[in-house]
């Protein structure tokens, strides 16, 4: 199929499905990304807009770093890495399917939030794949459903993922679940939904839904962006559990001097 013949990305994926195409589709734009296809089915999508299955498994602690590296070393071909993880007993086959499928749908949602860019087709590249893969038609339908739901609940999803929530100050209705508490620990007025998703190893769409629900319950409120359409967030990713208790972001004092590095040459090498 001529990549330039398709009128948009969903149409391209449908055409590639009919052809049984195996390879990659590199999508330009913001966030852009790479779509991995096997026999026309979407096996994985890598985009800076949402965590991949690998990121989800590692950040959440579901698989330890050392176990992951050992599995990668034992199985050179990343296409078969999933089978290796299951064979080593690091994750169940059904659970791996769930994680990989969730990552595909989430990345498609993240891709849909940016301005459509150009694309180009390429050869297959190794990736941790959802098995057997997601039908492009199903991917488009689910992404449309997500966009519609967020639009109904909040407004334009593209703006929603750019706002930076701050902890709520009013009366809170109901108890806080563990999932919501994890989010609240990340909310500091600087992080967007995307930042929180990466920090927790959760899906962007799931985090966005939780943020809306938490805002409704009074756990947080929205910090309206001061510069409409500003640059993407570059807030640092923080490992869960290392963030101090939620609170308003510190206001820098103009009277205090900047901190100075103290030379510690005598302690070089540590204890």
């Amino acid at each position, binding site marked *: 199929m001529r990549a330039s013949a398709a009128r948009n990305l969903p149409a391209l994926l449908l055409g590639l499905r009919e052809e049984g195409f195996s390879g990659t589709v590199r999508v330009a734009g913001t966030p852009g990304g790479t779509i991995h296809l096997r026999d026309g089915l979407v096996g994985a999508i890598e985009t800076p807009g949402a965590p991949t299955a690998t990121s989800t498994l590692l950040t959440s602690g579901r698989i330890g770093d050392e176990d992951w590296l050992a599995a990668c070393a034992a199985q050179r071909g990343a296409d078969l890495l999933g089978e290796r993880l299951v064979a080593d007993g690091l994750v169940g086959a*059904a659970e791996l399917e*769930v994680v990989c*499928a969730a990552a595909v749908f*989430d990345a498609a949602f993240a891709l849909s939030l940016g301005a459509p860019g150009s694309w180009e087709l390429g050869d297959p590249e190794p990736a941790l794949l959802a098995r057997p893969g997601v*039908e492009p038609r199903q991917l488009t339908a689910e992404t449309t459903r997500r966009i519609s739901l967020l639009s109904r609940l909040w407004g334009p999803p593209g703006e929603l993922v750019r706002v930076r929530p701050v902890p709520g100050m009013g009366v809170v209705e109901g108890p806080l679940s563990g*999932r919501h508490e994890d989010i609240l620990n990340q909310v500091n007025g600087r992080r967007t939904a995307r930042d929180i998703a990466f920090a927790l190893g959760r899906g962007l769409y799931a985090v966005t839904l939780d943020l809306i629900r938490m805002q409704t319950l009074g756990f947080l409120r929205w910090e309206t962006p001061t510069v409409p359409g500003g640059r993407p967030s570059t807030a640092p990713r923080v490992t869960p559990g290392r963030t101090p208790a939620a609170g308003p972001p510190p206001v820098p004092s103009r009277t205090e001097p900047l901190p100075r590095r103290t030379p510690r040459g005598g302690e070089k090498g540590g204890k």
Partner: protein
Amino acid sequence: MSTAVEASLARFLDSPGVTGVALVDAVTGLTYGVAGDTAEAGDGSESSEFAALVAERLGRAGAEGELESVVTTSLRRHQVLVTVGRPAGDPLLLTAGLDRARVNLALAARSMGDLAGEVLA
């Protein structure tokens, strides 16, 4: 879509009266797999929204802890939602349709609760 998930779900159909069962993401509503009658298992997004609504209302009413299950009964069938906890990651829901004429609800609910812990194995 998911062979390992669907194979795991198929075990639920061995229980008498279970007509359809699905594994659904409790947060996003995405359906990961279905066994049996898809319509009987219920729509994933509707099930997740309903379970979230019930959990929220129970929380406001003072209930503590995570939602375990929801049973909705109509003239001919039961719709059962069972929360599936995970070692890491967002919770899942097992959604099942049960035929009232053939099922013992107490036994079916217990069986689903027992099997829920093994569905991701």
